[in-house]
Each structure stands twice: as C-alpha cells, then as structure tokens.
C-alpha cells in the first residue's frame, strides 16, 4: 500500500506542478510579476487619483448629484477663469522659453571652460535647482515684499523709485516668471551640457574645414544634434511649469485681482478654500488635454527623428 501510494502521488501532482513551473518560467509572467509593484504604484498614485478627479469634476458643489460637464461649462463662462487660462499659458510658455534660452547659453559657457574649473561653476549654477522651491520662493518674497523689499532698497540707493513688485499686475507676473526661471534654468543647463558633450568633435572639425562661422556651426551642427534633448526637456519643463503651484502661492496668492493665478493655485482656491471641490477638480483637469496634445506632438517628433537616425 505504502509503495503503491508513493508511486501514484507524483503521477497525480505532476501535471499541476509542471504547469505551474511552466507558467512561472514564461518570460511574460516573470515580466508581469516584476512590474507588478510598479503597476500597483501607478494604479494607486496616478490612475486612481486621476479617475477620482474626473469623477469629482462631474459632481455638483455638494457632491450629491452628477452634472456631467456642467463645471467645465460654468468655468468657461467665467471671466476670471478665462483670465487664468491666459495667465497659465503666458506664464508657462514665457518661463519655458526663458529657461531654455538661459540654460542653453549657460551650457555653452560651461562647455568652453576647461574641465578643472568647470566642476565648481557647475555646482554653483545648480544651487537654485537643489533648494526646495517653497523655501527659495520665500527668499524671493522677502526681496519683493511690499514693505521691506531689499531690491527696492538697492534701487533707492541709486535714486530709482521703488517698484511695486507684487502689487502691480505686470510686475507681479514678471516676478513670478523671474522666480520660476531662476529655479528651472539650471535643469536645462545640465541637460544641454550633457548633450553638448555628446556631440562628436569631428563634426565641428569638418565644419571648420568647410569654413563655417560660429553661427553656422550652432545652426547646422549643434542644434540638429541636440534636437531630441531640447524637445524632451521643453516638454518636461512645460508640464512641470503648467502645474506650478508653490511660486504663485507664496509670492502673490494669485493677486492682485487674480491676475497671477495659474491653474493649480486657482484650483486650490476654488476647491479647497472656497469649498467647491468639484469645480476645483475641473480647474485642475483643464491642464490635462492641453498637455496631452503638446506631449503627443513632441513625442511623435522625437520618435520620427529616432527612426530616421536609425
């Protein structure tokens, strides 16, 4: 009996065990299991909140009934919100262009410094990017602050009248952009510096033999070689700048007269402070289609170029 039992047991378990082993050995299964933690993180921290935000945006103020796209319709009819759209676009585009231009210029300057001295300059120029933005913005706020502005104090020494940095609409907009550029330009600088270092020196030598001027070298060698990294950094920065919250919140709180609000700060004001969470969710979702369209075209361009190069 014992022998017989021992002999039959493996025969019964063998098919199940083997299929389990086969299942576990399949590469797709292993891949799925390995990515499961990431899928869980994305599901929990990206998909679920995004889905919940979309759900919230379709509710009425008391969150008791479904009103479809009602919140979006109401927002588009509001002058204040239309102004917020303009400001968000103006803020993001201006800040990204300036950050890219300054980052590009700084990267070139650094690229031409001998390797020994480059490290300390690189370190120093990265400082704004390393400091938490809420903290550095507070420092800027102290400099712009209406009553005790240190910048105004310096201007006054040279007999230049005080500037209402945060009190006058255009100055307030410029102040917000200045701080964002100060914070974000080092990111562009470091990315462009890495890209510059990867451009083969032979291309410049060939261009020099052909008699290319420095402008032509930049136009026909450097820029085409950096096109992909420029596209990706601009896209990444555009997303982050569009979603910016802390700078506006600390510097101006959206004022004066809502003229410096961006999507995120306005969403917070409407959703959390004024107690209209569905409408706040609708404000924050306005960024999504704009950024999705931009991301689609930028990434398509990058893919095409990669295929051409391949």
């Amino acid at each position, binding site marked *: 009996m014992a022998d017989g039992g021992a002999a039959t047991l493996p025969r019964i378990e063998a098919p199940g065990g083997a299929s389990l082993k086969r299942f576990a050995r399949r590469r797709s299964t292993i891949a799925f299991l390995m990515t499961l933690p990431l899928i869980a993180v994305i599901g929990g921290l990206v998909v679920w909140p995004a889905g919940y935000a979309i759900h919230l945006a379709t509710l009425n103020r008391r969150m008791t009934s479904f009103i479809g796209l009602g919140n979006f319709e109401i927002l588009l009819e509001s002058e204040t919100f239309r102004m917020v759209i303009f400001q968000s676009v103006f803020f993001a585009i201006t800040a990204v262009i300036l950050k890219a231009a300054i980052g590009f210029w700084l990267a070139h300057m650094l690229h031409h410094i001998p390797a020994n001295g480059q490290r300390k300059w690189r370190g120093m120029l990265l400082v704004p990017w390393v400091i938490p933005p809420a903290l550095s913005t507070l420092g800027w706020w102290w400099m712009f602050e209406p*009553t005790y502005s240190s910048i105004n104090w310096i201007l006054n020494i040279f007999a230049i009248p005080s500037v209402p940095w*945060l009190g006058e609409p255009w100055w307030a907009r410029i102040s917000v952009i200045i701080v964002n550029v100060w914070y974000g330009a080092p990111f562009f600088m470091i990315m462009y510096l890495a890209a510059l270092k990867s451009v083969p020196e032979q291309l410049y030598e060939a261009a020099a033999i052909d008699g290319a001027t420095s402008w032509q070298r930049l136009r026909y060698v450097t820029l085409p070689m950096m096109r992909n990294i420029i596209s990706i950094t601009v896209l990444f920065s555009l997303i982050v700048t569009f979603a910016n919250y802390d700078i506006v919140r600390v510097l*101006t709180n*959206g004022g*004066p007269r*809502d003229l410096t609000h961006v999507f995120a700060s306005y969403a917070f004001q409407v959703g*959390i402070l004024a*107690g209209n*969470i569905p409408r706040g969710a609708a404000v924050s979702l306005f960024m999504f289609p704009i950024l999705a369209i931009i991301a689609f075209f930028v990434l398509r361009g990058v893919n095409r170029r990669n295929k051409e190069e391949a």
Partner: protein
Amino acid sequence: MSKHGITRRKVLRNGAGVVAATAVGAPMVHAQGTSGSLRFAFWDHWVPGGNDALKELAQRFGEQNRVNMTLDFINTTGNQLQLTIAAQAQSRSGHDGISLLPWDPGTYADQLEPCDDVMQRLSAKYGPVNPVAEFLAKRGGAWRGVPATAGTQAKPACARFDLLKQHAGIDIREMWPAANRAGPGADRWTWDTFLTAAEACHKAGVPFGLPMGQFTDAVDWVGAVFLGYGARVTDERGNPTIRNNQELRQAIDYLVRLSRFLPNDVWAWDDASNNRALISGRSALIFNPPSAWAVAKRDAPQVAENCWTIPMPAGPKGRFLAYLPYVTGIWSFGRNKTAAKAFLEFITQRENAELCVNKSQGYDIPPFLSMSDFKAWETEGPPVGTIFNYPLKAHHQATYSIAFSPAPPELAQQMYLQALNTKVVARIAQGGESVDSALGWLEREINNMRRGG
C-alpha cells in the same frame, strides 16, 4: 454538564448579574458615557502661549473624566489646517474633533455631529450667542459645532494715538476711553472722519495700513465698510442686488477715494503686511485683533506703548465690527462623540473661556455676548486699557458682522474667499475700470458662483 448544575441559562443569568452589579457600583463621572480617548486638533495660536489654556483644560478634563486626551495644534500658515480638514472629511478618518475655519461648518455640515444639546445648555446658562457665530455654525437648523473661544477674533482699529493726535488732531483715547462709556467726539467717529484722518496721516508719511488684497483682513474691513453704507451685493436668497444699488455705489466710491491715501502696494498685502506696517512704526492705524500689538510689545515696545484699540468707524447705516469665529466641530465618523461633546461644553464654561482670553493676552473672544466683561481686557497693557474696547461693548453701538452676510452661507463663502468686495474696488482704483464695468463683472461672477449647486 447539567450534572454539575452549570447550565447555559445559569451562566447567562449570573453574567448579567455581574454586569449589572459592576454598572451600579461604578463611580459617577462628570459626563456620562465618557471614557476612553479623545483626539482633538486645534488651531495653533498666533499669540505666544495662546495654546496653553487648551492644554491645561484638556488635562483637567481628562483627569476628571478618565479620558486620555491628545491635542494637536495645526497652524493656518500655508493653509495647513484647511488641508487637514479637507483630507479628514474626504477620508472619513482622523481626529474626533477639529477647529473649523469660519465657513467650514457649512462646507462639511453633512459630516459634522449636530451639537444642539450642548448649545442649548450653554445658551440657557450664558444667554445669546454671537449672531455671526450662529450664522456660520448653524446649517439646516442644527449647530454643526460649538463656537470656540480660542482663535475667535474681532478686527477693530488698532491705532497709534500719538500719530493720530499729531497729524489728524484726533484724541482717540479721549473718544474711546478704557471705560464703559463713549467719550466726547465718539459720535463723530465715522468713515468720513476716518477719510480725513487717512489723508492727513498719508501726507505725514504714516499712512493707514489697510490691505486691499485677497486675504481675510482685507475682506473683513472692506465688508464692514460695505455694511456701514448699507451696501449688499445679494439678498438673503442670493439674488444679486447690484443694479441701481446706490448704497453699493456709495460704498465703492468711498473705498476708491480712501485707497488713494493708502500705500501703493496694499493690493498685494497679506494678513501679516498690516501687522508689519504698524510694528515698524510706518503706519498710524490698522484693522486687526491685538496680535499686532502683542508682537509690538515684544519687538517694538515704543510702538506698543502708543497703541490703542478702538471700534470701527460708523457709516450712514451703522457701525459694524468684523468678527471671525472659529467653530470646533465633531466628526460624525468620530469614535467618542459623547466625550467630545462633553469636552467642548467644558471648555466653553465661563471660567474656562476666561482662561483662554487671559492666556492669549486678550486676543480670543468668547462666543457668548455675556462674556465681554473679562478683566484681561481692562488690565492688559502697556498702556493699561489699550484693548478695553477690543470686544464689542454696548456703548460702541455697533454690530458684529461678517462680509457678504446675509447671503446664503454657501454663496457668501465663495464671495468671501474669492474676495469679490476688494476686487471690485481694485478693478476701479487700480485697474482703471469704470464703476459700471466693475459692477457688471461683479454681477457676472456672483451669477456664476450660484450655478452648479
């Protein structure tokens, strides 16, 4: 089993007897049903030592009622308290009770435990509650929390009596002495007199520090001016009352004229800017609770010694005093609601409210009108009596108010938090718009807010 005489019936009967005997023999505690633990989140007080009263009271309550008390103090800098409230409401978990900002009882009404029983007992003992606190804390006929003493504030004028006398010829201490009577000239303390004084102080280089931005200090004092002129932007049902509203035009015209005598950056001031203006000695008057004076006492004693708190000026339709109450709410999903109610009732008792006032150097204002006679307001100084007129007194002939009342609270909250009153003035005074155009914008904004209920 039955052989040993132990049956299921007997076990149940004896068990019930033991439970009953324990219940009868248990010591009587102050509030029946209390025990276990309680976790409360309170607003973190501006005034140094302002939290001490609540800590002391919680300890006493815990000892008396055998409740394990935990208090967290959360500040409003960076809207930390507002975010905590929103997060707890969304997740339906957190503290048993929490300090709610003025408009929050309405926002979270469905998730707050009604406190009518507590308020009924307190009102029977101490008389009427501040009408603004009632307007904000009651929803659907039920109290959604207990109006708090700690953190609750009014915003009268904190003025430099030396500068006002020197530059505007007004002796405010004589006008509003530290006594229960109005002095000579108090009847002339109107918004017109105020405008003249603002102009004089502006010329002298010590302009009034009145914010015109989007923070509560700005909305509150502008709201009091509106009410003083009888200017309402909606009726009780929320219908805009902007067209052909002469009172509204009068109030706006007044504020535009006044804004010419204010610092040119008031449009960007926050709730701390006016405090800084007073403490630095650059301003002759602000509208604020005594926190600015309390900080000046520590950092700029020469300024504090010359400060005197006086009621807001009166307009053609009366004198209004901006009032901003905190309400302590109990979450309906809280675990120990009976004990939480007992605790709120305990801290609102007269002697305990007085402790809060004392520890906050007179900053806190209790919700019951009968509690405006505490000694702290007479004795605090220097100069002694400087905040005597901080809480509203009968001789002020004033009314506590909050901007945008009596609009329905859901609408008033949005108008208040989006600072529609200061923005409409700013559009004219700073943005150069015509009055008609600015009022048109105001009406459209209100109509927009009313939608999507």
